[in-house]
């Protein structure tokens, strides 16, 4: 699903052509520069992004933006092929786990060279670091998010199960809650579900046990013991009934909110990226409660961190780096642009802007924003840039965790194999 947007852009470039046959290319001052911007997401995000881009083009009549978007998985593949073909987009959404795969191979522009255009003073240190490799800056968070637990209050009310207190609950509380929901619904609704292999989930659990999933120098910090405990905890919930039986999660469903089990009403709670709260809430009937991750209060160190759904990066081969950085600066620092774009990519990275758009948000949208602003005020462990090869880790864990799910491997075996596989993937 690729859409070309911006009829206004078409009009402008036609006008530029009309001026004469000479040149053709657009390095001359005053001619319209066309930027290509790509990202992943859905139609709602497209609409909001386009609204912001329309504002940008009005403020910068010399620049037109042609944008393309896709779902996250095909996006990843398409981006790789575009770089391989030597025709990378100018401005692009970059996954945090792929940043170094591109940056270390020289595919991305060091944004610190353009500090005259790009103003990052409003972005807090922890957030800015998400796009840093050494002292070079290859990406700016398009917004900030974290993960959270959502509970469908309509279902818990129906079955008379109390929702635990999100600020103090433990993983045991989650298991007890889930068990109750499943039992009281007569196994029609399962208490909770989340993917064992989603690294963001496992990372919170790892940090709570006092370890870093990735260490500051880009090594694997998670221990075998933590992996075993994580997998065993899920299997225990499964045996007790709070977690759905093997085979419940269909690998073909994908991760879109409207196809989630939460939306179908077959589970009562789930872990989500907070920037998707709005969409999940809409899909699940509008009565979701957002809790912090379990185990935060009792943990050795806080597990949650401030992350970004995507970084904005500029290709090092862009013919118009200045204009691309100008657009990037607009996306980060322009109040009107931020208002138009809303919180589809998380809370704005610029905290001044975040405060300003908060007032304009719908009540629904404020839930996740408040949640994140609350987290930002606390002292959380930093997240480090993912080392090269990290995009392979999900695949390795996903295959092993389904072996555990179907009883073909013990958690101990899976943990051992994961560590071996992950180390090999990161070493390469």
């Amino acid at each position, binding site marked *: 699903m690729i859409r070309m947007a911006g009829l206004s852009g078409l009009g402008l470039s036609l006008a530029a052509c009309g001026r004469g046959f000479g040149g053709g290319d657009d390095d001359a001052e005053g001619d319209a520069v066309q930027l290509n911007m790509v990202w992943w997401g859905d139609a709602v995000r497209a609409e909001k992004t386009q609204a912001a881009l329309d504002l940008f083009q009005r403020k910068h009549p010399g620049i037109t933006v042609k944008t393309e978007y896709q779902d996250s998985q095909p996006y990843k593949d398409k981006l790789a092929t575009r*770089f*391989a073909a030597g025709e990378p987009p100018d401005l692009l959404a970059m996954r945090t786990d792929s940043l170094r795969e591109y940056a270390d191979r020289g595919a991305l522009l060091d944004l610190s060279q353009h500090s005259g255009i790009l103003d990052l003073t409003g972005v807090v240190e922890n957030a800015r670091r998400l796009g840093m490799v050494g002292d070079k800056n290859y990406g700016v968070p398009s917004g900030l998010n974290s993960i959270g637990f959502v509970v469908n209050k309509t279902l818990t009310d129906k079955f008379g199960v109390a929702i635990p207190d999100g600020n103090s609950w433990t993983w045991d509380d989650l298991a007890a809650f889930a068990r109750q929901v499943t039992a009281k619904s007569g196994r029609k609704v399962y208490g909770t579900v989340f993917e064992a292999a989603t690294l963001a989930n496992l990372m919170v659990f790892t940090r709570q046990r006092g370890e870093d999933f990735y260490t500051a120098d880009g090594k694997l910090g998670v221990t075998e013991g933590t992996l075993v405990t994580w997998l065993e905890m899920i299997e225990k919930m499964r045996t007790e009934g709070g977690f759905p039986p093997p085979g419940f999660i269909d690998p*073909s469903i994908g991760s879109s909110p409207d196809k989630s089990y939460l939306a179908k009403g077959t589970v009562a709670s789930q872990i989500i990226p907070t920037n998707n709260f709005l969409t999940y809430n809409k899909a699940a009937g509008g009565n979701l409660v957002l809790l912090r991750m379990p185990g935060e209060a009792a943990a050795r160190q806080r597990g949650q961190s401030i992350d970004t759904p995507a970084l904005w990066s500029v290709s090092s081969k862009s013919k118009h780096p200045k204009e691309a950085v100008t657009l990037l600066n607009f996306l980060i620092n322009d109040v009107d642009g931020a208002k138009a774009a809303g919180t589809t990519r998380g809370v704005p990275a610029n905290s001044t802007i975040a405060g300003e758009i908060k007032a304009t948000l719908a009540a629904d949208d404020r839930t996740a924003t408040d949640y994140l602003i609350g987290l930002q005020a606390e002292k959380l462990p930093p997240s480090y840039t993912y080392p090269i090869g990290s*995009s392979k880790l999900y695949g390795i864990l*996903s295959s092993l965790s389904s072996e555990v799910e179907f009883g073909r491997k013990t958690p101990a075996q899976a943990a051992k194999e994961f560590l071996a596989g992950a180390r090999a993937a990161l070493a390469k």
Partner: protein
Amino acid sequence: MSVSSDASTRAGTPTPPRVDGVTAASIRARKKLRNDRAGYLFLLPWFLGMLFMVVPFFASLYLAFTDYNLLNPPGWIGLENFRTMLGDAKLHQSLKVTFVYSFVSVPLSLAVALGVAMILNRGIRGLPVYRAVFYLPSLLGGSVAVVLLWRYIFGLDGVVNQFLGWVGVEGPGWTSDPQYALTTLIILHIWTFGSPMVIFLAGLRQIPALYYEAAAIDGANRFQQFRSVTLPLLSPIIFFNLIQSLIASFQTFTQSFVMSNGTGQPADSTLFYNLYLYQKGFTEFDMGYASAMAWVLLVIIALLTGLNFVAARYWVFYDN
């Protein structure tokens, strides 16, 4: 080509041979030239297509010996990619999946295709309609839409499990349980028996009714007729279908890509060779390795096809 049309040609007045030999030869030569030209003209699209094929073809041969991450220029590493393959457990898993899939689904789908073709060959009214209906799945089977449809049929609360529920059986996760996921894809493949069926049907129609009559007079029952008349006379067609289906099944990609969202899950049970190749090239940025894998697949298919041609000497019967 039927008996009657042959007979009428033979019965028609033969054209008298030309007296002037030279003229006849030059006419023949001109005719041949015209024929050749037509032939090359028909081949032209293929040649044009080949231009687009040849470059990537040899490029991938070169890349197979390099370390190429799509972003930096490829670097020569000799046989390293092939050496890595020997110890790559995931690659071995993908080979296992592909071999199991091919060796189970190809014979089964050919058997179904032949069975349906024989039923249709018994002169049912409305044959073209049936033929079209049975052929339809093989046009659609590899398409995304149909695989999506199958997801709903075989989903945890899909049609199949609802039906099983009525008879008191709790159905498994056909696409989410590693024990069944590949089976589901094999069933999908068998369902697309249409194109070998159409070819079988054409082959069956070429077997003269005469042989069956003779066999019946000799007291052969239906099974004996099938074994001693149908199978030997149809063997070239079976051979053709076998080769075609085997090659196609080794290249399976779409079905598992859609069914598992490109992951080969659950537990790598639908990790087809081509899907793994794709993952290597496009999600892990190891295009050198992916190219090497493509060439290994080519060799595997060539070997299997070669083996089949050798084996064919012992079971394929050519009439003429």
